[in-house]
């Protein structure tokens, strides 16, 4: 069951002169980030992941204690997991096998007497392969033998193997086919139901409208609108993206 935690951003200023804002993410919810390219949503996600620094405070509040997230190491320790956008340049390791690509962030989990146990690794991989419906010839095939969608699933499995409390996804369905997208949507809903907090940046409005409970629209590096429930309509989102009143 979900731990009682909140993932907070307070007085965050994404760019000099931009208005400070606060956000609270809680387990069980899927929050979407939208905006025109380069309007701060990408930077916000990276700041939350501890990858970029910005004035303000990012922290994980858990059972009455506050854990500040000042850098990537803090995020790693608090199991706040970031999945980058560009699969080719920041995701896959093209010379490595599917299995290696899956296990690379959590190799210690497979250690038996100091050495990586192939059996343990394979068992862990099979669990996620089934859950994410990864279509792959053999775990030893190179990752580049997979389709874009299946590569993305392996990268998600790599992130999920870290047992995240908060999952920060940077455009996770970019270049992914429609069938795979729906597998991923179902998975995200399941993860939220199991008590994970998900923040999803997406370049497609339909996707966030379909998937998220709440939507934050960015313009000029500040929050231009926060929508939920009935208010989540594409007209409203587009208006907020372009800085017009809906």
């Amino acid at each position: 069951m979900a731990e009682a935690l909140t993932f907070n951003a307070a007085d965050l200023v994404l760019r000099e002169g931009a208005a400070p804002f606060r956000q609270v993410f809680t387990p069980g919810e899927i929050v979407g980030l939208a905006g025109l390219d380069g309007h701060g949503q990408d930077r916000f996600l990276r700041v939350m992941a501890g990858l970029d620094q910005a004035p303000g405070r990012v922290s994980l509040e858990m059972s009455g204690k506050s854990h500040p997230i000042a850098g990537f190491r803090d995020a790693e320790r608090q199991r706040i997991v970031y999945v980058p956008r560009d699969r080719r340049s920041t995701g896959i390791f093209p010379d490595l096998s599917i299995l290696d690509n899956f296990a690379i962030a959590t190799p210690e989990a497979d250690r038996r007497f100091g050495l990586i146990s192939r059996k343990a690794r394979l068992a862990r991989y099979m669990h996620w392969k089934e859950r994410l419906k990864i279509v792959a010839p053999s775990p030893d095939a190179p990752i580049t033998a997979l389709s874009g969608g299946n590569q993305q699933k392996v990268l998600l499995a790599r992130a999920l193997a870290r047992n995240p409390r908060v999952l920060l996804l940077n455009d996770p369905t970019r270049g992914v086919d429609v069938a795979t997208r729906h597998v991923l949507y179902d998975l995200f809903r399941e993860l939220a139901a199991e008590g994970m907090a998900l923040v999803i940046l997406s370049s497609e409005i339909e996707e966030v409208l379909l998937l998220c409970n709440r939507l934050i629209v960015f313009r000029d590096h500040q929050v231009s609108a926060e929508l939920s429930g009935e208010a989540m309509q594409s007209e409203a989102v587009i208006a907020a993206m372009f800085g017009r009143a809906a």
Partner: protein
Amino acid sequence: MSGSMTPALALSLRRYGFGLAILVVLLIANVVMNPARFHPAAWGTLLGMAAPLIGAALASAPVIMAGRGGIDISVGPAMGLVNAVVILLFVHGGIASPWLLWPVALLLGAGIGAINGFLATVVRIQPIVATLGTYLILTGLTLTILPAPLGPAPGWLRSLSGVWSFAPLGVIALCWWGLSRTPFLGQLMAVGSDDRAAYTAGVNVTGVRFLAYVIGGLLVGAAAMMLTALIGSADPKVGTNYTMIAIAAVALGGVSLAGGRGGLIGAAIGAIDIFLLQSLLTAFNVSTYVLQVAYGAVLVLAVVLMALQDRPTKRSHA
């Protein structure tokens, strides 16, 4: 930088800043420590002494600028082979005319460059391995055709060593300036900084890289002639020393080993830096051992300072 400066000038100052600063400091130090040797009247002789190293650095630069691990470690041995062939042609072949020896030197250099270029771009062997292969072949070949030093060099060539060494360097500068008026240099930089983007934009990446090797080879030919002028003979072992020191000079002159940044001016500045350092330490009458430590220290220090200067623009979270 002052606001009135043109962006291009500011950029090249930024790029060559360290090389130039070291150059000025070393030059002043040399003039103060060794006024006789660095008397303005002697600058011609000094230029002649620096010319082979400058030539070697220039020859190393185009391939490095072409990126994707491009490097030519056969520059030194190639200079050695050209040096040996020219003197053998003169002493044993009786060919003395500059109208024959210059073309032979340049064509031989360009030919070696073309072989390196073919191996690195068409056969697609990693450049350092391809030129390592030619390094070994050229070293062996030179020692086979010329087991021991041989002399002399033709009179006209020896007279090219002093003030007159500005002639070949000047011709190189002129040719490079001419080349910078063509699309080639822009394409070379584009290929060096991002070959995939250049490829997508329709640049013949393989062709540009191949040409970079050939141009480097031509410069090797010229550098070998300047070397021959300086030593006035042929020495089968003199060439190999130049490779590493030329690459060091290129790095010192702000040419990025990742490709796409720097130019021949930088390479020349780096070579002059090393020459001045050499002179200064010789003036102090220090051993060659101290000289070596100084080379290494200046090289490491310069690249570290250059990297620190570039650092604020790109922050890594790792």
